[in-house]
């Protein structure tokens, strides 16, 4: 019997991240993991999250994997890249938030610089979700990392100009985020492109919901985005990213469940997003990272 294979008219843009050992994400001309249709030159990648301060609220089941490295972002990043085989490192500048340590942009810049010295995998840098402070810190750090071709985030509809300008002048790509709203996602990408930003330097984040906490909303919006992108909508034909670790480990189940519940929660959430078209999954637990890398390998085979 003849198999019906969908032929898409367009492709997802290919974004290159990193300078020493650059990786490519995106470039799909079909849907991931559909036998016969999957013409995806670049497999989904796993980034591991590193903080510039001790993430005290993390459950012990997660903290125990990193030990003392939690107090030293450079060691932590090295551990993730070397021992846990992270494809990318995602540095969260949590300490710069006015409600945490309110560290200065110079201190943040130093961390970025030191991490870049010791890792060869590409770096993602995200702020502390304090918009005003982020603008100051991220613009500074983008300049510190000039030439390293990082991925910076997170641009939102109300706050994208400073970050986009900084990325533009320092040669980085950008994460554009809309809160589970495909129309705003498209609008934001247009606004960013209006600043002479190239469409193939944008990675979309639709917000991430963990399993049991809104996963299906993000999942279906990611599917719609990918289908629109493959059907020729240039303003939605970008690769997508999910911050799975932070969401999975925030759940009641991960925090209070049995020893492995958090790992399972993170793995299950990430697996779902792989199937909805995620190109980068940011994760926390080394065991969950290992499982997801195996899953990608199995699904591609």
């Amino acid at each position, binding site marked *: 019997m003849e198999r019906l294979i969908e032929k898409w008219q367009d492709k997802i843009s290919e974004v290159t991240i990193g300078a020493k050992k650059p990786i490519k994400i995106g470039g799909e001309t079909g849907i991931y993991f559909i036998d016969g249709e999957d013409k995806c030159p670049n497999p989904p990648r796993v980034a591991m999250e590193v903080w510039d301060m001790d993430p005290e609220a993390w459950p012990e089941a997660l903290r125990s994997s990193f030990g003392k490295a939690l107090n030293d972002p450079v060691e932590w990043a090295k551990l993730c890249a070397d021992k846990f085989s992270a494809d990318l490192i995602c540095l969260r500048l949590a300490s710069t938030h006015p409600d945490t340590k309110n560290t200065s942009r110079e201190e943040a810049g130093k961390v970025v610089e030191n991490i870049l010295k010791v890792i060869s995998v590409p770096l993602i840098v995200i702020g502390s979700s304090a918009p005003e402070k982020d603008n100051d810190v991220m613009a500074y750090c983008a300049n510190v990392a000039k030439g390293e071709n990082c991925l910076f985030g997170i641009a939102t509809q109300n706050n994208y100009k400073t970050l986009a300008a900084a990325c533009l002048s320092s040669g980085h790509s950008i994460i554009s985020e809309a809160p589970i709203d495909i129309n705003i996602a498209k*609008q934001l990408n*247009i606004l960013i492109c209006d600043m002479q930003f190239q469409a193939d330097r944008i990675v979309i984040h639709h917000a991430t919901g963990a399993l049991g906490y809104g996963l299906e909303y993000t999942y279906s919006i990611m599917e719609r985005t990918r289908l629109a992108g493959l059907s020729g909508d*240039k303003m939605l034909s970008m690769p997508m990213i999910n911050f799975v670790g932070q969401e999975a480990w925030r759940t009641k189940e991960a925090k209070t469940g049995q020893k492995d519940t958090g790992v399972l929660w993170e793995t299950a959430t990430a697996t779902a997003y792989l199937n909805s078209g995620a190109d980068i999954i940011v994760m926390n637990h080394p065991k969950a990272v290992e499982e997801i890398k195996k899953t990608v390998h199995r699904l591609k085979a």
Partner: protein
Amino acid sequence: MFLIGERINGMFKDVAKAIKEKNKAVIQALALKQVSCKANALDVNVGPASGNPKEAMEWLVKTIQEVTDISLSIDTTKQDVMETGLGICKSRPIINSVNANEEKMKNLFGLAKKHNASIIGLTMDKAGIPKDSEGRMELAMKLVASCVEYGIDASSLYLDAVILPVNVAQPHAKEVLRTIRDSKMLADPAPKTVLGLSNVSQGSPAQYKNLINRTFLAMAIANGLDAAILDVTDKELMDSLITAELLMEKQLYCDSYLEAYRKK
């Protein structure tokens, strides 16, 4: 929607003059302007006044293809002029047009097969243009049947229900709209539909032409129109088109949807 730019037509004075004087710059500027306005193909018609239409067609096609490889819609009623045009097209051409007259169908579907061309089929025959949708559908059916008979995929056929000027043939507009909607049922996959849009406002006062065109286009899009021969350089017309397609959910909404369409 598949857009065929109408401007390179000897009915327009600037084009007629350029053909006569062999002024390449005028034609090439018109071609590039239409391409930049998102035309998917360009109609090429030497016009009624040309003394040697075959030579004029060859010159037009070659002149256009010096600056763009876009698909061309060879627009002529003369078989030899059609053959000349089709023979030198670099990209997949469009035959504009055939009607439901047996001899015409035999000749032009044969040419479509030979040149791997798409073809615009007018729902008219020797007896003229039917006055209602039923008559048009009958001819549309004939066109679809012949198309299959000559080994051409029905999806390469664009049915044109032939809109007449509203100032002299007012009852036709609603019949054309019905034909556009109903012709989707003639085959699976459905034949495509096309309109030579500007004809609807032919003869109306200059200040209303564009308004009539864009209003009718929006109505036709609501009835499922797939393609149109139109003035892609008319910004308000294009804005209406983009908006009508948006309302038909052909593209995802965002506040800058006009800009998004033009970025495609």
